[in-house]
């Protein structure tokens, strides 16, 4: 047990951090729902960061740290699936990835070269042509898309499907970890600057305690996500995804309460984190799906 970063992990985290600093602020003229940054995609590709999980000194744990850091940015890109799921699939598949669950619009589908398609218990892979996918307008802060028509699906074996679900859970938790931290930080900034009744909102205990609870939840998700990426155990992945979705539900509500009407606007970046969290809350069967996985992998339930 040792929570210090190795020198390789430290070097990676600091390189990612440096890269991320160039994308910290939301462009003032942007008033959309999902802020996608082609420049971020470009820099990550140039630096070969999508392949860090495959480097033995780094591995999935370092990739999870990168996913977490980049999720704190107001802008998004197809990062978590590429960094954490893609290296675990047996066949080499081109990125970017997209994800469709039970026929609903999914993240990054309209620009994906590989789409993971979950339908009930089955997991398949599709490689749609650009003409076979289309974007969908959404309140969510990921670019959402769907297939125009039925495309050819290659069904994964049960074993591969289980592995894919596991790494989807880890990717979800690592991404949620960064989003939660950024959402909390955004609310803290507002509570520090905004004054009512002659003092900053952050000086009211009713709000301080709620934010402190959010911070504890966010920190817990972070540890569970990193541990799951480190051990690659089914049980750890299920616990991490469950705690991520539980915390996302609670924190998304709380931070919007803290911001009042300001949080409703597209001027303020808060929704760029909370409406990514809301997208993640719905994935992989939601909390019920994760609870089932925990029952199976932690409590030995035969379901």
């Amino acid at each position: 047990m040792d929570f210090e970063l190795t020198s390789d992990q430290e070097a990676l985290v600091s390189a990612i951090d440096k890269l991320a600093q160039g994308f910290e602020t939301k462009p003032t003229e942007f008033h959309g729902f999902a802020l996608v940054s082609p420049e971020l995609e470009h820099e990550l590709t140039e630096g070969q960061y999508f392949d860090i999980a495959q480097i033995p000194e780094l591995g999935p744990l370092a990739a999870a740290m990168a996913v977490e850091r980049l999720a704190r940015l107001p802008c998004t890109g197809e990062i978590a699936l590429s960094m954490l799921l893609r290296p675990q699939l047996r066949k080499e598949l081109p990125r970017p990835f997209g994800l469709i669950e039970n026929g609903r619009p999914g993240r990054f589908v309209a620009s994906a070269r590989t789409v993971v398609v979950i339908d009930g218990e089955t997991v398949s892979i599709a490689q749609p042509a650009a003409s076979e996918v289309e974007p969908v307008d959404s309140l969510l802060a990921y670019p959402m898309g769907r297939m125009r028509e039925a495309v050819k699906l290659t069904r994964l074996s049960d074993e591969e499907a289980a592995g894919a679900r596991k790494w989807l859970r880890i990717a979800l938790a690592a991404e949620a970890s960064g989003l939660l931290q950024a959402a909390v930080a955004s609310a803290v900034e507002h509570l520090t600057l905004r004054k009512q009744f002659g003092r900053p909102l952050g000086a009211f205990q009713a709000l301080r305690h709620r934010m402190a609870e959010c911070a504890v939840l966010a920190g817990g998700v972070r540890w569970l996500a990193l541990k799951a990426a480190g051990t690659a155990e089914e049980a750890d992945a299920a616990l991490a995804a469950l705690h991520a979705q539980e915390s996302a539900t609670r924190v998304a509500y709380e931070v919007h309460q803290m911001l009042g009407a300001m949080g409703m606007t597209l001027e303020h970046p808060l929704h760029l984190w909370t409406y990514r969290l809301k997208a993640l809350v719905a994935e992989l069967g939601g909390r019920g799906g994760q609870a089932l996985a925990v029952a199976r992998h932690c409590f030995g339930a035969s379901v």
Partner: protein
Amino acid sequence: MDFDWDPEQRAFRATVRDFLATHLPPDWESQAHGPGSKSQSAFSKGFCGALARAGLLVPHWPRRWGGREADPWTSFILAEEMWEAGEPRGGQYMNVNWIGPTLMRFGSEAQQERYIPPMARGETIWCQGFSEPEAGSDLASLRTRAEKHGGTYRITGQKIWTSYAGDADTCFLLARTSAGKGGISVFLVPMGTPGIIVRQIPSIIGEGDIHEVFLDEVEVAADALLGAEGQAWEIARTSLSLERVGIPRFALARRMLHRAVETLKRAGRFGQGTFAQAATARAACEAARLYSYSIVDQRRHGKTTGPEASAARYATVMAERLVSEFVVEHVPEALSGGDAMLLAHHQRAIVAGIASGAAEIQLNLIATDLLKLPREPR
């Protein structure tokens, strides 16, 4: 970063488990030991003595005091195994965790010689005289006063919620030597000193756990003072930082959750209706565990632990609560004679958010020191 135990840590855990298997009586799990009960206190003396002889009572202490300078992971693994087994050390865990180390840091040579060896032999029980009727979370407003008369101090006042006071040999007592927050001092007071009356408070958390302690002109020698007059705040801060993640509550909570689930399985009642709650509680236990580990890891690397310790403590309180609520809802027979271990856990979980600093105080600390939110007006 590595989430696996190294071979030495595994071996140490196995040693502790072997010790427990040999030294706990066969009916241990079927008896609900209140941690402060007479029977538990008596048992703890034999048990801690055996632990000491096996080198498992204070392995993290310096060699001079019977330890082997083991790293913080060793003492935490030990604490996990003990707490998970229902804490057979009783109140003596306090000696090991913080009273001993605090005396090593702030005590005089004579105080150390007098008090530390009996702790290292596992034969003495201490209590912690902090809270008062008018000073709970607001500890700085305590009123018990110690007045100097020549070579002695006379202490008068009242303590409350004092754990283990019924059987304690010595009290780690806070008393006021002058006005204000800087006027509080620590005294090491033998509980047999004339003028001390202990009254047990009947409670829902188990027999003999909490007490009122009345002090009426209790005369102690000047050398009962720990450190300097007015140094209590600094000393207590050290003690509390050791205590805050001192009890690995998540370990017993997790074990009891699994125990409750096994009970439900045997009855054919572990199904879709209970999965969500059990899973949520299990995740909370794991979050609390990793949070606590992160603090142990900071100590291991010689770092001062900051507000993360409060976050770890709060995560633990949430885990205790979720497990305890799961049992109340799904294995309610535990509270009516059905399972002594689940009952004992329930009683300990009641205390989780209250003892050693209320959970709400932790939230204040997190808000101010971790999130850097503006302070509340006072």
